[in-house]
């Protein structure tokens, strides 16, 4: 029997120790620990790596701390657009969704695209039609609103972030 393992990330960037308060750092560490604990327990109980990945990411999507699900950043027109993907290393099957606006946990829809459609990626309106057919419930786009992201969006609009735009 294979020993299990799991690894997660919550984004990379200009995370400076001097700008992260001890309270906020504790929140981040606590949420990462919660996600890891859930994912690892699924694996130790014999669950699949796909189940562990989906459950772990869903916890991070539900947290306003991270730029995914609740806590997603703002688009230029003041909305939130979410993307997600998943891949199974055994079969090389994969599923992805892009630019969905009303799906609470896009990682669940990505897995459903992989398992219940003949396609790899569905985008925008079509992805949400597929989600409806598959019985997904919808949230309003403002479910993803957080004050922190709104304030940052305002700074970006006003050019106050001091960060160079990089688009490759």
């Amino acid at each position, binding site marked *: 029997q294979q020993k299990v393992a799991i690894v997660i*990330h919550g984004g990379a960037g*200009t995370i400076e120790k001097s700008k992260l308060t001890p309270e906020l750092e504790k929140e981040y560490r606590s949420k990462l620990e919660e996600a*890891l604990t859930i994912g690892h327990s699924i694996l130790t109980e014999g669950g699949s790596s796909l189940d562990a990945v989906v459950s772990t*990411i869903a916890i991070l999507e539900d947290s306003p701390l991270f730029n995914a699900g609740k806590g997603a950043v703002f688009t230029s027109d003041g909305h939130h657009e979410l993307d997600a993907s998943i891949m199974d290393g055994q079969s*090389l099957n994969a599923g992805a969704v892009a630019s969905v606006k009303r799906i609470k946990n896009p990682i669940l829809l990505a897995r459903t695209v992989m398992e219940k459609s003949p396609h790899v990626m569905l985008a925008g309106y079509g992805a949400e039609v597929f989600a409806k057919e598959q019985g997904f419930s919808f949230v309003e786009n403002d479910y993803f609103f957080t004050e922190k992201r709104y304030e940052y969006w305002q700074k*970006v609009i006003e050019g106050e972030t001091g960060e160079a735009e990089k688009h490759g």
Partner: protein
Amino acid sequence: TVGCVALDQDGNLAAGTSTGGMTNKRFGRIGDSPIIGAGTYADNNSCGVSATGHGEYFIREVIAFKICAKMELQGMSVDSAASSTIHGDLTTIGGTGGVIALDKNGNISMPFNTAGMYRGYVGTDGKMGILIFKSD
């Protein structure tokens, strides 16, 4: 962006990534997160990868697939493959970000070229680690 790679008791790897994209994006811009091979990839013969960073660069360098390919075709370890891809291929073209990678034997790599990356793991020994800064 958030991501996860897992290895189960049957030796199967899976990888996933989810994101809210880039602040103030226009034109229906899509980054690497939903692009299989760029932001996410998994192959039991090599490793699973989830990426975070400036998506356009990860797309151009096909970062997630490249890490797996280096392992399978060049015989590199997961850490050599992931680190050389982030600190070499990605950095060379001006991209910033990082990846988490986990191979079929449970070896973990988490390279990034930014000031920090929220990250954590539970290894095959059951030990948990949670890290944020480069110095962690």
